[in-house]
């Protein structure tokens, strides 16, 4: 299952809500930048006046006065610019912080079933790549666009005020400018996205080669990996060539506008001046404005481009907030701690049932081992029993209340699932454990760690429980990470536990030892252990053999062995009897 991506309308609506929420600072920013841009327009105007004055004869005082006005304009622009820039950058920081925090909030509230099925890759990409891509656009892009737009508009207005007739000529290149920009912007986003995808693939290839360096060496995959790098580079080159082609059209298109405009103004202005309709100074000023407005126009096009690219990231970020909840808490208090599955059916894909109407009752304090071939539906059954997915048909209930009717907080108190997935969070060992019980005292942590045979190595770490682990901290082996996950479960202490290959990364003997110490602590708790090692089954109260989405055999180990079915055959070959 893929996570949703918001459509354009939703993204626009979201951006509009953000803007509306920050209307006041936005207005402030526009006002400040308008002031700054106004002051910045003084230069050509003063020069125009000077040209007029010099041509017709003037006084030193007049020149000095004009220059002083120029000094005042520069000083004003300096001061206003300082505040305008600061306000807009602070604004960008605030909006972006808000956006990313809202996003993380939405991610951590995703329904259990979505998290289980979507996989972490896509979510991690959205949290890192997309958020970072957006950062540039929101922090710098939005303020820059405001500045560019304000400057362009004011420049045009001033030209129209000085000499509307002359100013008409400056628009000579505008139609072609708009056309070529439109042409470019339509194609640019897919082009640049292809580029970044190509580089991401290249980085992935290198990452794989480095992380799998041993495998590459062992199987003599070097030439293959090399060919892959070259193929990725070739794709990056093709992507670069495409955007380069776009720019080869865009650049001359825009440059032409700014070559044509001043020449046209000069010629047309010259004609008007010869008819005494305008002054030479006015024409001069407008020619200079034509040059001066080049920068802001380029900047605007650049940022529209960037913002377009960022909008795709925003669509993926907003998309996460569109996932519907997979359950609605209803009233009902479980009568007791028994778990009962009735006619549980489930399909990940329409028409491909993974479970076919499973019935199962778990007695309180019972230990059930689930065995069966890969792909038989053991893990899916485990998830149903833990209330992760709502079943397609049938129900799993605790004390008569369907698991999916329970509020999440309560559900965790009843049933918890530990899989072979091992993630160590950035933080201390204690932080990692306290996820399950925020206020757990150190003694409780010790007890939990002892229960999973982890106390010795935790104590041997540089700072014991306070040792920083996770990305950037002390490295833990996958087996140790699994022990931490189990210790967490001990702290959480639900009455029913589902362990899906939860000790598979330990070596067999250590695994068995751990399972024994764990079962001592979990005395009285109901445990469903999905396992690929038969000793787990041997130690359990009952064994369920799952094949092709059905429970084909269920009963005590000895009874099953005596019955002489599948399980017995397996056990005998294992036993070598």
């Amino acid at each position: 299952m893929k996570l949703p991506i918001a459509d354009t309308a939703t993204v626009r609506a979201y951006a509009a809500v953000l803007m509306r929420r920050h209307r006041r600072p936005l207005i402030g920013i526009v006002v400040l930048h308008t002031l700054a841009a106004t002051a910045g327009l003084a230069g050509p105007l003063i020069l125009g006046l000077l040209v007029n004055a010099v041509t017709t004869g003037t006084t030193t005082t007049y020149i000095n006065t004009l220059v002083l006005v120029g000094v005042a304009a520069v000083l004003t622009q300096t001061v206003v610019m300082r505040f305008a820039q600061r306000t807009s950058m602070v604004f960008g920081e605030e909006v972006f912080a808000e956006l990313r925090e809202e996003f993380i909030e939405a991610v951590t509230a995703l329904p259990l079933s979505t998290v289980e099925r979507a996989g972490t890759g896509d979510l991690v990409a959205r949290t890192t790549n997309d958020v970072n891509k957006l950062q540039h656009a929101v922090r710098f892009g939005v303020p820059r666009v405001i500045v560019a737009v304000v400057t362009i508009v004011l420049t045009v207005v001033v030209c129209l005020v000085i000499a509307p007739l002359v100013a008409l000529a400056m628009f000579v290149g505008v139609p072609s400018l708009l056309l070529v920009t439109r042409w470019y912007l339509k194609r640019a986003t897919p082009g640049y996205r292809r580029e970044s995808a190509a580089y991401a693939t290249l980085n992935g290839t290198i990452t794989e080669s480095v992380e799998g360096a041993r495998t590459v060496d062992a199987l003599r995959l070097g030439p293959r990996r090399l060919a892959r790098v070259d193929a990725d580079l070739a794709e990056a080159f093709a992507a670069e060539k495409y955007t380069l082609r776009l720019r080869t059209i865009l650049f001359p298109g825009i440059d032409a506008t700014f070559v044509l405009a001043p020449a046209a103004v000069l010629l047309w202005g010259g004609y008007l001046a010869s008819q005494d309709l305008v002054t030479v100074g006015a024409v001069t000023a407008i020619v200079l404005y034509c040059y001066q407005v080049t920068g802001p126009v380029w900047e605007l096009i650049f940022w529209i481009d960037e913002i377009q690219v960022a909008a795709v990231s925003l669509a993926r970020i907003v998309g996460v907030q569109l996932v519907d909840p997979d359950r609605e808490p209803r009233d009902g208090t479980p009568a007791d701690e028994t778990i009962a599955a009735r006619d549980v059916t489930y399909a990940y894909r329409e028409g491909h049932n993974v479970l076919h109407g499973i019935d199962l009752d778990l007695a309180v304090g019972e230990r059930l081992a689930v065995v069966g071939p890969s792909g038989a539906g053991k893990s899916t059954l485990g998830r149903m029993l833990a209330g992760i997915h709502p079943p397609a048909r049938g129900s799993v209930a605790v004390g008569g209340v369907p698991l999916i009717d329970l509020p999440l907080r309560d559900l965790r108190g009843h049933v918890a699932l530990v899989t072979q997935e091992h993630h160590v969070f950035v933080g201390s060992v204690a932080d990692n454990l306290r996820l399950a019980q925020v206020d757990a005292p150190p003694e409780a942590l010790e007890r939990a760690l002892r229960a999973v045979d982890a106390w010795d190595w935790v104590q041997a770490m540089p700072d014991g429980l306070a040792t920083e682990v996770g990305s950037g901290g002390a490295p833990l082996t996958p087996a140790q990470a699994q022990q931490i996950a189990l210790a967490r479960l001990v702290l959480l202490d639900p009455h029913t536990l589902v362990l899906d290959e939860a000790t598979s990364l330990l070596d067999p003997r250590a695994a068995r030892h751990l399972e024994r110490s764990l079962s001592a602590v979990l005395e009285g708790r109901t445990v469903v252990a999905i396992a690929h090692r038969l000793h787990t089954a041997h130690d359990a109260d009952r064994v369920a053999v799952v094949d092709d989405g059905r429970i084909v055999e269920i009963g005590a180990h000895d009874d099953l062995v005596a019955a002489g079915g599948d399980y017995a055959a397996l056990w005998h070959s294992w036993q070598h009897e």
Partner: protein
Amino acid sequence: MRSLPLADPGTPPTSGPSALLWWLARRQWGILLVAVLLGVTMFACQAFTPYIVGRAVDDGLSHGFGPELWRACGTLLALGLVVIVTSAIGHRYDIANWLRASFTASQLVGRTVSRSGHAITAELPTGEVVSAVANDALRIGEVYAHAAHFLGSLVAYGVVAALMLRVSVPLGLVVILGLPTVAAALGLLVKPLQRKQAAQREASGRLTTLGADTVSGLRILRGIGGESVFTGRYREQSQTTRRRGVEVAQTQSVLDALQVLLPGMFVVVLIWMGAHLAQAGTLTPGQLVSTYGFAAFLAWPVQNATMMLQATSRAHIGAGKVVKVLRVVPSTGATPAAADAPEPGVRLVDEVSGLVVKPGRVLALVSADPDESARIATRLGRFDDDAERETPVRLGGVLLSDLDKDDVRSRIVVAEATPQLFSGPLGGELDVRGTASRDDLLRVIATADAHDVLDSVPDGLAGELPEKGRSLSGGQRQRVALARALLIDPEILVLVEPTSAVDAHTEARIAVRLTEARRGRTTVLVTASPLVLDHVDEVAFLQDGVVVARGRHEDLLDDVAYRAVVGRLMDEEVMAR
């Protein structure tokens, strides 16, 4: 544009970053030269433009609408046309330079990575190697892309200075001396800004890590709680990042303001001087306009010079990091072969443990310490010449380390316990030698009992595996890796714990098919699983790193120590019997 990547990236010097940068420059001197010529032409034309505008004001506007004005406008258009063409073609050459240099650097890193074996991970963190391609190679390219603009800017500066000096010596001197002063002053202010930007980037990097960490462990979080702790942590870091950003804004806004103030004042001073000269009659109005135009234009070359400085320093740092990767010496085969390869069908002997691998037999290696047997099996494949000097292995009496490395790899294949899968079409990833037929593929898939993988990858054999085969379960990955190793079908195949992650049902099936498939071919299996041991020709039992017993599994079971290791029952139960 020449197509990239190049077939042969060449052999670079690894003496230092500067040597690498020069080497790259020399390899692409042709396109560098063209780019620089185009850049110089473009900037020279740009520098002339204000001069022509000034002439137009004097000749055209002041003397009425006539041929002078037409000529001036024509010249402006002609200059503009040259600028348009040289800028568009120049941009293509700049990009060509950038891509050529950075792709070459990426290729070189790719080459090192695919040959190094585990030496690369032993010497450098994965992140640093990936970053050499993801960042450093691109930074290296930038310096070649900026070269043309930089040299063009220098020429433009010279042109403007010469033109100004011709008009008026004092004005010329102000330009020649004033502008570098302004640039230097701005340069000084960049330092504190960069410090704050670095602090902001660091905070933002930590935030990204935190986000990725939360999302990677999201299944755990959603399963047992703790979301609020994590969103709280993220929010806190997000706010810290925002504050760092605000600090950047403080400094940046001051710098922005000064970027208005200093060049603004520079222009005002020039105009003031110019206006007085014009009033005195030594300067025409047109020359006054040119002066203003020059002053406005020169901001650009100064900006280019600053960018070049930054690009050079970044490229130097990047080249340093790339050189660090290129210096990694492969862990095996760094020196040429010293002996001829023995005939096929000879014994492989590990001297320290006394392990003899006889041709044509399927041998299992059992040890109380699974790491120990894995270590011995691994050195049969020769992975690290330095580390394995003390533990000689001989093939037909010849030291493995004396043989040609490729020869060793093609005859002996060691598949380790945690082999890595790579992204790509499933069929292609299985058939790493590219020689297998569809039937061969299906045959090894059957042997490894990996049919379910064909169902779980959309499109089966043609379907794409994601990075590291992440979409598959641990057991599925192991079976795919097993099929891949079987398909290579080497003279000697060593499999370390090939079934550790699969369930007992599957393991039982694999044991039969695997031993059947390798019957008569030299094979070493490291495993303690009775399901597998039952089917091998012979078992070698290790204690304290030495082979203490050899024989068939059922015969060795009489040995208490052996039984304790392979028995599915714990030691105490064995004792109790």
